[in-house]
């Protein structure tokens, strides 16, 4: 179960109301939509009244003369109604799509701002269903549901008033039907909100499973576990089917009731109306007009069910969307800049714990000083906290205590964009996007020239990028278009180098390279690191040699700092970590 489903959703109507700001730019459109609809209601009442006049003219009064002008009037009103509908829909299409598009843009912007701690908690399937399914639900309500909720209620009220004025005993019958409808609607709404939220959440979970089935396909295939994941998916799909059936049953009952009530009213009206005409208290034309008007209420009333369902869906959707808007990014930009950055990086008593496990510190009292231009290697066992330490520098996560400074300024006081210009990281697991190789390379510096790119490719020994089928224009998809792990790492390295940072962070970036390539890359890197402050996570002695000094990290804190040879000689734990393979090789050679 996702982390999101057990959160309490904000109350329905308020959630939608809070999103009203998106409608503001479309106020004129809304006014036109409302205005045309109101006139439309008036027309739908006028036409049956015209009918009455036409029927009573030739039949009751034996007079043919009013038929032609009244008929032409009916024609004119009919044309007017169509024109108004056209106008409303035309305006509405621009407005609602504008709202949906704006919300999607904002949601995406917010998601990009939210820090890693948020993203590692949320499954991307849940995020995806918010920007697609949920936004469509809100759009449908904003364009259609909201308007007709108002219009239909208005139409019902006005028509009922007209009916009361026409012949009050029948009017009362019609008015009396309102009570059960209101009562049912309220009851329905309560239950529907629960079930529709459940459907939406289960859809999100299913989307997550679909995503895992797609992204993890190679692992699934390697182990022949297609059957296993298929069954998981089917179980979830079966659960969704059961919940959806609950929803179907609930709404079927409600819709049926909403249709039955007006029809029953027609039966009663016919009975009383016919008696009324028989007794001369009502003209035949009036009875026809009465029934026509009443039947014109069937749609507004029965569609209330659909509209309320729509409103409900929009409310849950709004609540789910607000869950994202309401998450305040806990990593916010500072406002300072380093005017003449030198790249002096300092860790001062740095602690770190993941937000969901505050009692289990991952890093404790880390102190390290990197002079401008200096390169320090971080050495430590798997899981000792090296990667998280590197992630603290560009503020992918924030320290929980202590501070990190660049040229004496706390990184939390720096403008985020500025900080991330100063620092570039090459991750061990390179993320390549489905874009051209060039776009992937220039991620950190969009204005890089061809010469810059060539240089970076050369440093990272990634010249193979030129030999791709379409050269640098080749799209290297999520799986890097048959690029090997080593090739992807080298592209990621080239990307970091191309950014020309003051501080270059390499998180075990060379692990997938063969010895020859690694040697070439290291030689080239040495040139770059000469002028750049470097923090290099290293598992191999060869990588350590890139550094001026080595910091040994054990159980989340730095225990030793010094020269490679010195540490080899004096610190057994260090020898254990780095010298082992050399010993082996030496023994064998």
């Amino acid at each position, binding site marked *: 179960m996702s982390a999101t489903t057990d959160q309490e959703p904000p109350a329905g109507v308020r959630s939608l109301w809070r999103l009203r700001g998106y409608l503001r730019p479309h106020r004129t459109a809304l006014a036109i939509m409302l205005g045309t609809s109101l006139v439309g209601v008036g027309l739908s009442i006028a036409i049956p009244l015209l009918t009455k006049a036409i*029927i009573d003219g030739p039949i009751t009064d034996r007079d043919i003369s009013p038929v032609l002008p009244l008929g032409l009037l009916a024609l004119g009103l009919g044309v007017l109604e169509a024109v108004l509908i056209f106008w409303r829909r035309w305006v509405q*299409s621009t407005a609602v*799509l504008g709202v949906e598009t704006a919300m999607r843009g904002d949601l995406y912007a917010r998601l990009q701002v939210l820090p890693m701690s948020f993203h590692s908690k949320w499954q991307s399937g849940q995020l995806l269903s918010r920007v697609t399914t949920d936004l469509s639900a809100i759009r449908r309500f904003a364009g259609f549901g909201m308007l007709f909720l108002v219009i239909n209620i208005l139409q019902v009220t006005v028509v009922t008033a007209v009916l009361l004025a026409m012949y009050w005993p029948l009017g009362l019958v019609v008015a009396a039907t309102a009570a059960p409808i209101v009562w049912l609607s309220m009851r329905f709404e309560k239950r529907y909100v629960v079930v529709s939220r459940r459907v939406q959440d289960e859809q999100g979970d299913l989307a997550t499973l679909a995503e895992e089935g797609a992204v993890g396909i190679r692992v699934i295939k390697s182990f022949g576990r297609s059957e296993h994941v298929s069954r998981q998916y089917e179980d979830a799909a079966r659960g969704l089917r059961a919940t959806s059936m609950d929803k179907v049953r609930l709404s079927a009952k409600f819709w049926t009731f909403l249709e039955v009530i007006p029809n*029953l009213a027609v039966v009663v009206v016919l009975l009383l109306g016919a008696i009324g005409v028989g007794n001369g208290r009502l003209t035949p034309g009036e009875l026809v007009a009465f029934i026509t008007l009443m039947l014109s209420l069937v749609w507004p009333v029965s569609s209330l069910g659909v509209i309320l369902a729509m409103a409900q869906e929009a409310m849950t959707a709004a609540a789910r969307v607000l869950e994202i808007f309401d998450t305040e990014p806990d990593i916010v930009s500072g406002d300072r800049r380093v005017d003449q950055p030198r790249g002096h990086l300092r860790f001062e008593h740095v602690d770190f714990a993941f937000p969901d496990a505050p009692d289990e510190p991952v890093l404790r009292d880390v102190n390290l000083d990197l002079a401008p231009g200096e390169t320090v290697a971080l050495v430590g066992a798997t899981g000792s906290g090296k*990667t998280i330490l590197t992630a603290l520098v560009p503020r992918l996560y924030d320290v929980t205590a202590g501070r990190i400074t660049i040229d004496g300024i706390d990184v939390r006081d720096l403008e985020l964009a500025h900080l991330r210009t100063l620092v570039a990281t090459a991750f061990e697991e390179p993320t390549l996007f*489905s874009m051209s190789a060039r776009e992937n390379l220039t991620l950190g510096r969009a204005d890089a020239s061809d010469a810059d790119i060539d240089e970076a490719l050369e440093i990272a020994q990634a010249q193979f990028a030129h030999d791709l089928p379409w050269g640098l224009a080749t799209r290297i*998809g999520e799986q890097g278009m048959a690029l090997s792990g080593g090739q992807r790492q080298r592209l990621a390295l080239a990307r970091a180098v191309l950014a020309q940072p003051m501080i270059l962070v390499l998180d075990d970036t060379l692990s997938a390279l063969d010895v020859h390539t690694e040697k070439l890359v290291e030689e080239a890197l040495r040139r770059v690191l000469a002028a750049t402050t470097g923090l290099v996570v290293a598992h191999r002695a060869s990588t350590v040699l890139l550094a001026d000094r080595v910091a040994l990290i054990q159980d989340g804190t730095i225990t030793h700092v010094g020269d490679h040879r010195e540490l080899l000689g004096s610190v057994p734990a260090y020898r254990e970590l780095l010298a082992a393979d050399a010993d082996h090789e030496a023994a064998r050679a």
Partner: protein
Amino acid sequence: MSRPTVQPTSQPTSQPTSQPTSQPTWRGVSATDAEEAAELEVERRFTGGSGQLLRELLRPYKKAIRILVLIVVVENAARLSIPYLVKLGIDNGIDPIRISGDKGPLFLIVAIMLVATLTQAAARQVFLVRSGRIGQDMLFQVRRRVFRHFQVLSPAFHDDYTSGRVISRQTSDIDAIYEMLETGFDGLVTAALTLVGTAGLLLFLDVKLGLVALTCGPFLFWVTNWFRKESGKSYRVTREKVALVIVHFVESMGGIRAVQAFRREARNQEILDDVNEQYRAANLVAFRLVAWFMPGIRLIGNITIAAVLLYGGYLAYHGEVTVGVLAAFLLYLRQFFEPMMEISQFYNTFQSASAALDKLAGVLREEPSVPDPASPTRLDDAQGELRLEQARFSYVDDRPVLPGLDLVVPAGQTLALVGTTGAGKTTLAKLVTRFYDPDAGRILLDGIDLRDLTADNLREAVVMVTQENYLFSGSIADNIRFGKPSATIEEVQRATRALGAHDFIMALPEGYDTQVANQGGRLSAGQRQLVAFARAFLADPAVLILDEATSSLDVPSERLVQQALRTVLAGRTSLIIAHRLSTVEIADRVIVMEHGRIVEDGAPADLVAGGEGHFSDLNDAWLASLA
């Protein structure tokens, strides 16, 4: 059911996605573009794609649908009878009251009306629940089939298709079908019946007036037909555009770490704004079509009503029709046009659903490039002897990665593959695990061609661990059990202990039950690699392939893994691909590859002892790098 699916996209080139040249430059060029264009071509030729799929899906419900149709007919008969009963009430019920105060005929009519109303309600309730169930069952079947089919399709397909598109097939396309089933199906059936029933009743009530009313028919048909064609086109574009949005979204959220570290946000936003805008524009076209269509229908309806009023008033004056008939006429006309609105609403959902179905049908039509054999050979208790005979393979034509490889790996041998990047080592691994089939030549496991084994059978015998260590949501234990779902927690722990992974797992907040949130963001790459290793150990295959599987481990972990490997690999065939020679030392035999050919082959000690050659050089470089 009509077949609006037969919507030839008259100019496939007018769709932006099919035109690589018109794409923004950031997208880059890929062979997929051509394939997408080809996909459209295919859809043009097999326009029945969605229709056929729909028929297939509906087949099991033939009987249920027949019952459903019966219920709908009953419901509509009841509903259509009500205006007629109103007419009877006015024409036959009033006069007896006027004349003799006899309310009997009126009561009778009202009683019949009451029965009709209740019948309609009951039928409607049953219909909604039953059709809902069929819809949900169908949806379940589609989901199931699509998910399973994606699982069957080969990795090569997934490489090209990209996971973003796989996901959008299973989310937004399924949603479109769901929407149709939820709202549209009911509307269409009711509408069709109402249309036919009403037309008949109008003619029955009064032929002349009926004919006047029905002259609107050709206009209705023409407008509806126009709308059908146009919206078919526009919805196909809409689906394409929403897929673009989804692909970009999934990718940027998946790679959010790199996005934030490299200040990619602005550019990403630009791209999203672009695809978002394209989606909006496509939607706008669709919405505007409705903006023309709906009032168009209303216009025709209103003109018809006015005509009936004029002509009916004239006829009533001459006593040729009764008030009751006129009243019934107006009521029926209202019912006649209302379903037109529903039909158009239905087309909205139906068009997007049929476009979605087309795409799903396209996926389901896709044949796996490594298909299961028609008559498989069963391999039990695999020994693990691997044999490659003149295996030839290329990703791109004319650029063979393996020009024709001969290799025999005896059962139980630990073979290390060494060579520079691009020498074909990983390709070799992918051929042996049958991610791909060789273009020529064959690969045998215990003397059986891999193509004669079922996928499941092969995977029982051959398992690969790569450096790509995808973790699924669920607990750590679940992830390790992925190698053997039936494994007990003791077996899981035995595997992790052997690998030295037990300690770090126990140090996690909830030990083995710790939830691996979104792709294991919490675990380090090395830890994830250990989990992946534990998976493979638990799977206990006859042939184990390690493709750079230890690259992220630190030296002590790697040593632990290697110790474990010594025991685990004993009696097992294994292929180890490694850049680090430290991994090679447990191998019985080393082959050095270059440009897809074997250039050296022998025991590691012998190759080193030779003093020259690639392996010896590599070994020297390796020793030098250790410093």
